[in-house]
């Protein structure tokens, strides 16, 4: 997983080792190395603007830096880059399971809306997350609020049946907000701890569909809005993250399909744009294929 980006950073050691022997770093010393590194990042699906930003910051930090005796320049550059990326990824991320338990102990369901563009993996991720909740003995009901896409109702219904989880379905062409609302009522009347709302995929640039999503949010007042992003996404990840965040306001991100031997840069792009934590990674089509995202592990792994 994320091998590409890791390789890019490993290469660093070979390129710069012999280049700099000075004591104070000047622009010329780092310019070429950083330019290469920027391209490497882009090649690994860090969005262009994000990569440019990171490199600019690193450059500022490095120029004028006094390399100490015995300190390797390679390490200086690496550390600066690593810190820069780390700063972009570490946002407050209190454990979601604890949050759900806390709210449930007050007899209130914790409501999560999953949103994102078409086909990224929202519905599958809801099934996987339900499985996580089940394993933690937390009750859950699913709201099948995608009343638009052909087969969407049957798809989520099969998942709910397989996982043995209650589901409130809707009718094709019906109002998604009312499906979601009904699921919340269902949870309240039965003391169910979590409501997971599956919304139809929509383009972040589609004004009407964004209005529809806003209505769902207004009606359900969710505790959390989770943006789902496909790890294969290139530069558009920035637009997706920005527009969903600006229009709806997201609280957390889940990245899917990282099993597709992905480059890994998307995690950096979406974090830096939204400044919201990535909470889980989806890495396959089975219910078990969801794991917690750990920014430290991710960044350390890139620089191992």
């Amino acid at each position: 997983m994320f091998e590409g980006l890791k390789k890019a950073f490993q290469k660093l050691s070979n390129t710069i080792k012999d280049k700099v022997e000075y004591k104070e770093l000047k622009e010329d010393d780092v310019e070429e190395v950083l330019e290469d590194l920027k391209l490497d990042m882009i090649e690994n699906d860090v969005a262009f603007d994000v990569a440019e930003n990171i490199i600019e910051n690193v450059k500022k930090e490095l120029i004028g830096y006094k390399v100490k005796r015995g300190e390797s320049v390679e390490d200086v550059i690496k550390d600066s880059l690593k810190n820069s990326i780390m700063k972009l990824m570490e946002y407050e991320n209190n454990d979601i399971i604890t949050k759900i338990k806390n709210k449930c102990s007050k007899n209130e369901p914790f409501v999560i809306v999953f949103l994102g563009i078409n086909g990224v993996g929202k519905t599958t991720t809801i099934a996987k997350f339900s499985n996580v909740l089940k394993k933690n003995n937390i009750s859950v009901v699913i709201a099948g609020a995608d009343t638009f896409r052909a087969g969407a109702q049957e798809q989520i219904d099969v998942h709910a049946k397989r996982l043995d989880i209650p589901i409130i379905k809707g009718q094709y062409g019906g109002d998604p907000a009312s499906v979601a609302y009904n699921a919340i009522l269902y949870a309240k009347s039965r003391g169910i701890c979590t409501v997971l709302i599956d919304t139809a995929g929509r383009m972040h640039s589609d004004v009407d569909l964004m209005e529809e999503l806003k209505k769902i949010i207004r009606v359900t007042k969710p505790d959390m809005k989770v943006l789902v992003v496909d790890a294969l996404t290139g530069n558009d990840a920035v637009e997706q993250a920005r527009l969903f965040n600006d229009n709806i306001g997201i609280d957390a991100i889940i990245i899917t399909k990282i099993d597709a031997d992905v480059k890994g840069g998307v995690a950096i792009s979406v974090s830096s744009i939204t400044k919201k934590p990535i909470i889980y990674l989806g890495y396959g089509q089975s219910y078990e294929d969801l794991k917690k995202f750990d920014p430290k592990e991710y960044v350390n792994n890139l620089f191992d």
Partner: protein
Amino acid sequence: MVLEGLRNAVTKFLKGGSTYKDSVEEFIKDLQRELIKSDVNIKLVKELSENIKKKALEEEPPSGISRKEWFIKIVYDELSNLFGGDTTPDVEPKKIPWIILLVGVQGSGKTTTAGKLASFYVKKGYKVGLVAADTYRPGAYEQLKMLSNLSGAMFYGDQNNNKAEEISINGVEYFKNKNADIIIIDTAGRHGYGNEKSLLDEMRNISNKVKPDEVILVLDSSIGQKAFDLAKQFHETTPIGSIIVTKLDGTAKGGGVLSAIAATGARVKFIGTGEKIDELELFNPSKFVSRLLGLGDLDALLEKI
């Protein structure tokens, strides 16, 4: 929007000021930047811009046309040649029945596109059959069935069979007996890495058994730098004949399709511009190149030249 930069560069460029050579250098830089932002493969960007630069500096424009306008034309030609030039794609069946196999990564839009293609051909007066050969994704059967109703195509599926290969063979047989003109097989999404190696075998087996006349790769326009490897892997498993790019109604520029073309040699035939059954358009290279470059008015500019 994102590509504002290039538009300004063109304006600046057409207005002139600096020498031709300097303008070329500057433009190439902007061009590279915008192509990368559009998700064109980095190596391709380098190749492309080298070619463009060479031609721009070597060739002389015909009289009456400024060198700068000439240069824009070179950029356009270089890119649109990659898409097979300015001819409209040929989408007529070459024999009856014409068997189409749709393949692609999870969620790229295969099933939706199967419905759209069916609708497209039904409207042209063909008898179309849809085969539901995705045995993995929950609801895939119902999804395609609903789309076949919407499009007026026939439907074949078997929920009691979990062998995609058998369903494909039976479906083709079924539709041959019904005198279908066009048979479209929808398959499960796959990327083929890691645990999914067996899914590549499945795809190869389906292809070997039904011998499709056309294998179409369905590519999500938002895909990044992985597009090349993925397309290459699909092509090595079952040779890709054509490409359909989906979700171009969003903000993605679709540069990944250039990687797919480079990896397969296939031509782009259609683009998807929405979720609805009629939101499928014939591919138009000039329109696509303008989009890639963020130049809305490229056609008008080219007409002048």
